[in-house]
Each structure stands twice: as C-alpha cells, then as structure tokens.
C-alpha cells in the first residue's frame, strides 16, 4: 500500500478550527486504510501535550507512542488550507498544510525528509501551499532520497 496517495491528499479545503483540521487529516488516514478511527482521538490528545506546528506554515499531527496499536500501515495524509488554519494565535502560527502521520516503522522517512527540505525555503513551501494538482504534492514528497534510514 502506498504511504501517500491521491486518496490521502485533499486540496483547497475551507479554513476551520485546529481540532477540525486534525480530524480531517486523521479521517484521510482512516479512509486510506492506515488507521482505526480511534487514532484520531490520539492525534487530538497528542496535540494538547505539545504542538506539532513545525514552522513555515506546516503542522504534522500524529498520535502518541501508545496509539501505535491503532495503526494498520504506515501512511501520510495532506490537507491543504489556502486560507490557513490558526494553530496558535499567541505565537502567530498559521498552518496551510496539515500533514497527518501514522507510522509503525521507517517507511515514511523519505516522505518526511522531502517535506523538511521542501518547507525549508518559503518559496518551495509556497508551491505546496498553492498546488492545485495533488500529484504536485505527491511527487515532491515521494522523491527518492540520497540518504534513507
């Protein structure tokens, strides 16, 4: 099963609350067959202990160590909010890409390394935030990596 597929990418989603954005990212993981619905609760709980906002308009919600039993297979979902979702008003953090993660092993190292590279520069982050074709995101995040664990 693919880690990231058209089934788990949703573009141009109207803005919503942070909690709903996490649910939407989680529901795509459910739809892709990667997790049980209970994993979404874990994602919401995890977010309360520490923010998964990583910078440059991207958040990576995922469950905790103890939620791993709700994972059937490693998967990544991408929800794009062109207007942004307020992640932390006090810190001025707004997420335009919400990347749901469910991982049992290391198969997703390449995808997350590509994500880290892609959002390092605001211009390339912008390309993902403005993409109108899911394949643009899938291809950018599925590039082979020079170094993989």
């Amino acid at each position, binding site marked *: 099963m693919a880690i990231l597929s058209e089934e788990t990418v949703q573009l141009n989603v109207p803005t919503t609350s942070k909690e709903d954005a996490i649910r939407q990212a989680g529901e795509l993981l459910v739809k892709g067959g990667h997790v049980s619905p209970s994993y979404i609760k874990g994602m919401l709980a995890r977010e309360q202990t520490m923010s998964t906002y990583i910078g440059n308009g991207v958040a990576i919600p995922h469950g905790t160590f103890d939620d791993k039993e709700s994972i059937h297979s490693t998967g990544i979902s991408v929800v794009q909010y062109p207007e942004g979702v307020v992640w932390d008003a006090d810190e001025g953090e707004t997420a335009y890409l919400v990347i749901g993660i469910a991982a049992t092993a290391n198969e997703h190292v390449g995808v997350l390394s590509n994500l880290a590279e892609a959002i390092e520069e605001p211009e390339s982050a912008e390309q993902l935030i403005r993409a109108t074709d899911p394949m643009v995101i899938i291809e950018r995040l599925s590039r082979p990596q020079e170094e993989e*664990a």
Partner: protein
Amino acid sequence: MAKSVPAASVKKIVIACEAGMGSSVMVTNQLKKKVKQANLNVQVEHTPARAIPQDAQIVVVHKGLAKMAREKAPWAVVLPFDNFMNIPAFERIIKALQNNTDIEEA
C-alpha cells in the same frame, strides 16, 4: 558541571521525539547529510524519547522532552532545541567532531 563527551567516543547520535514517528524523522536526514558531507563516521538515528538506545552518546531532542530524555538516557549528552526548522546543535556537533573537541551539554 556540564556533562560532556569527547568527539572520538561519539559513534551514534539519536534524534528523539515522543512517538518517534514525526518530528524526529523529519530532521534525521538533515543531520545524516551533514555527517556525510563532513565525511564523518557516525551513525544517526531517530527514536522515541522513552527508548533511546544504550549505544547512543548524543541525544538531540525538542526542549519539551529534554527532561524525559535525560531520565531515560542518563549516560548520554542531551542537546535540546526550540525550533525544528533551525537546530543549531547540528552545526555544533559537526564542528566538534571535525575539530576533535568535547561536546558539552548546553
């Protein structure tokens, strides 16, 4: 007194986060590439903070998990960071390994 490790003893560096599936995975390759560019012979891995391997000499971890990392891996030098997009500890580690100096807890 700050805990430290001599560069020559560093064989494995781990990057830790809570579940070991998100942020630590994202940044592990950055450090791997830096290690490779500098031609250093050091292993780099990602791990959950509660399961830091015994053979890791350095742990790089978000400041929110630094306490847990120190408890779980009292033998290791723990280097906390604030921001995933900018981890100054990476440069510090590479420089120390290249110059063969000690790496100290900040």
